[in-house]
């Protein structure tokens, strides 16, 4: 241990003199700083949006109650609307994932169906979406390995080029300990800005709860595993006895293959193997169902009354025919669209299965999947929100339809019985279970790499 500490101390002194080290660490520190700023901005805008929607939801409820007694239009249950919003993902400030792409808010009315529930959200900057956001997940997945390569490519090759390796051997210095000390000396300055960034995000990004702390601890473990993996790669390639340029080229080729090429190929293969059904077909089918249901509206209204004994549309304080028609048409279109939406879910599920299998081919994929799961910005939370929103819509529509058919008017009791939308966050256990596979795989791969690299290093 003494020799490892001594090697680390000596190497730290050498690092302080190296311009490349300062440059690489400077780039990492700046990247972490910018990513933290960008993450906090993203988080704040999402919080603001969700908060704004909640205020509007309460305001519109009050407005409906206030105008219902005097305005027959507002008094109709079929004219009620409500807003729903998904709160910011637990660690939205860490990894944007697909959260900038998916809908976050929606307007619900008894005339809405699943196809029109999320219809006004696609205004975000296409260029920003296509490029992706500069967040800490990007730094961990893409920049961190490059900084490790920049700091580590000369781990052994520089001595070899200068002939110092023989000198060390003559003095009986254990190469394994020397390498361990060096890796330690270079690992610490890399981890420090990263940990500082994660700490800032934890304290400034949201509530200081045990659940967020658990997610952040798992993030630290994943990031450390990712860094260890790349140090394993660096040490392993260093044992190939290449020159420093050769080592650097080999490491960069490995980085390109594992971080860029493999995820790109896996992504392309996944969508090629399991393409989602055509959105155009879905739209055409929904419209055919809409027209078909509109033509059968009278029959559908009668059928609805028949299926709901106790309701008598003729006895009601007659909602306008168009409103009843729009209500039953929305129900019908939902029923017609259900198999098509199921097909989308099946395609996405199949894509998930392919990626779950192929994620082991790239540490970048493992890190991306793990960070997305921990941040809550992956498809799992997006689908949970979508399903809950659809269920809420169906509940709202059914309740208001029944009220309309019984001739009820909007009042405090009627609206009070309708709880506003509240997103049920996936449990911490489910999140940790989803992140456990990438996390465990990362550490297993890192461990194997370190052991293989160690075995290739001569004892002396």
């Amino acid at each position, binding site marked *: 241990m003494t020799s490892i500490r001594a090697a680390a101390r000596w190497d730290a002194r050498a690092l302080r003199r190296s311009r490349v080290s300062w440059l690489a660490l400077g780039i990492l520190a700046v990247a972490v700083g910018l990513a933290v700023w960008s993450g906090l901005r993203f988080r704040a805008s999402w919080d603001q949006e969700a908060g704004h929607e909640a205020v509007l939801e309460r305001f519109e409820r009050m407005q409906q109650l206030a105008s219902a007694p005097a305005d027959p239009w507002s008094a109709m249950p079929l004219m009620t609307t409500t807003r729903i919003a998904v709160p910011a993902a637990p660690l939205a400030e860490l990894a944007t994932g697909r959260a900038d792409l998916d809908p976050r808010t929606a307007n619900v009315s008894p005339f809405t169906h699943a196809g029109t529930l999320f219809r006004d959200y696609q205004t975000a900057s296409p260029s*920003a979406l296509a490029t992706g956001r500069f967040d800490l997940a990007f730094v961990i997945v893409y920049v961190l390995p490059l900084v490790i390569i920049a700091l580590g490519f000369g781990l052994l090759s520089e001595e070899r080029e200068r002939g110092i390796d023989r000198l060390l051997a003559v003095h009986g210095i254990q190469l394994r300990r020397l390498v361990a000390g060096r890796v330690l000396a270079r690992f610490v300055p890399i981890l420090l800005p990263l940990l500082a960034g994660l700490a800032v995000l934890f304290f400034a990004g949201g509530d200081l709860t045990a659940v967020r702390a658990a997610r952040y601890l798992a993030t630290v473990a994943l990031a450390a595993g990712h860094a260890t993996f790349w140090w394993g790669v660096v040490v392993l390639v260093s044992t190939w006895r290449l020159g420093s340029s050769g080592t650097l080229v080999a490491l960069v080729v490995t980085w390109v293959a594992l971080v860029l090429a493999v995820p790109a190929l896996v992504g392309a293969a*996944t969508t090629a193997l399991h393409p989602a059904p055509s959105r155009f077909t879905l739209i055409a089918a929904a419209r*055919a169902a809409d027209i078909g249901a509109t033509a059968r509206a009278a029959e559908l209204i009668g059928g609805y009354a028949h299926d709901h004994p106790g309701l008598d549309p003729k006895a009601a304080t007659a909602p306008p025919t168009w409103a009843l028609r729009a209500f039953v048409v929305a129900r019908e279109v939902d029923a017609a669209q259900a198999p098509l939406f199921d097909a989308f879910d099946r395609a996405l599920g199949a894509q998930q299965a392919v990626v779950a299998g192929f994620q082991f081919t790239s540490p970048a994929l493992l890190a991306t999947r793990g960070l997305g799961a921990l941040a809550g910005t992956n498809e799992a939370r997006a689908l949970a929100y979508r399903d809950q929103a659809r269920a809420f819509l169906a509940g709202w529509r059914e309740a208001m339809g029944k009220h309309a058919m019984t001739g009820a008017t909007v009042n405090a009791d009627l609206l009070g019985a309708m709880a506003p939308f509240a997103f049920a966050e996936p449990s911490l256990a489910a999140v940790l279970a989803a992140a456990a596979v990438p996390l465990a795989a990362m550490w297993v791969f890192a461990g194997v790499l370190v052991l293989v690299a160690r075995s290739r290093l001569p004892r002396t």
Partner: protein
Amino acid sequence: MIPIVRLTWRQLWRDRRIPLALAVLVALVGVSLVLDGLRSSRTERDRVAADLADQQTFNAQGPRNPHSVAHLSRFAFRPRLQTALLDPGVSDYTGAAVWMEAHKQDPATARAAEDRLELGRASELGIAWVWQVVVPLLVLVLGFDAIGGERERRTLPLLVVGGASLARVIAGKAVALFAVFAGALVVTTIVASLAGSSVTPVPDRPLRVAMWVGGYLAYIAVWIVLVLAVSTRARSSRTALIVLLGTWTLGVLAVPRLAATMADEGAAIPSPAAIREAMERDLEHGFDGHAGSEDRRKALEARVLAQYQVTSLDQLPVSFAGIALDEGERFAAEVFDRHHRALADRYRAQRTLRRSAGLVTPLIALQHLSTAAAGTDVEHQLAFLGAAETSRRTIVGLLNADMTAHAAGKDFEYQAAPSLWQTIPVFTYAAPRLAIRDSAVDLAALGAWLLAALALLGWSVWHANQELSS
């Protein structure tokens, strides 16, 4: 110079760098072309089929009130252009379907990116991605020791003493590297053009392809000149490699993403809810907040009664509901134009902000140029949205006109004959002609980058000559 070119090729072939680079290129471009080609033709097939099915559904809806039909209206589906295979640009992140319904200018929906898993957007396989991200790395691997290596092997003085000036040696190496990648680029373009023939043709395709190829040739040239400049100036090949890798990391990986994030913050897009609220507010209360929808309706009523010289709406020979709907559309069009123009201005402001990051990397200028040429940039999406909105106004206008003319006394109880639906024009979209003026800044930026790289190379050569002569 030709002997130097041959010598460089021989060296790079012997140490397997050229075969390796070409193998990487062929594999990535090949897979991209096959998968993108299949996806493009599938998307086009689905679009055409869905459009036809929707048209049949629309035409066969039987007698209905025109306003009810205006609510159903038609969908505008965006075709996939032939040139999109060269660079998908933002097309997967923009909606490809617009509902052209009455009263609303809906945003485009059906974004392809929503139907796939998120695997990190820095690595989305495609021809443009290969040439923008991977090829500079290949240039770097082939050229980082082009001059430094000769110096380390002590063959550089021999070359110079042998009659070739250092500038000529470097020019030979540059031509050798450029020829390898330019050849590969031309082959890529030809194959992509053939593979893209199954999708919607673009009238000015030769011009677009020429601009696309020109942009990438300039980009490759910038990288080759930079690599040679650094290789000439650096003390060792190792140092050159470190500097070049750092440059690539910043210029290709980090800065474009950072620039997009900064631009998104600098010219922030209001949330969808905020845009919707602002539009609803203007529609309800007028632009100044004092001309509410009820006031506008009363004013219209007075105007129409005066025009037809009657005292009540019942006496009108036309449907007042039809007139009111049309007037509502006219006012709504002003509101939509104002808000959508503001949104488009934000997108353009972001592009300007991103362009300022072009001082740090040539990639941003290339990305703008490449997506403009491929017809997959934000401007093309705005053109599609504009065409859909024009079509929406035509459709809704025709239906309102029919209601005005035939629904007197019946208004919303009036049922138009099904033959009316056949007269509604079908949405067709032709990509706008390539606006070279819009791309002039990016062309100039790439040119400036090339000049700057050449100046750097000239400075490096001057220094190296000083060292050689001393």
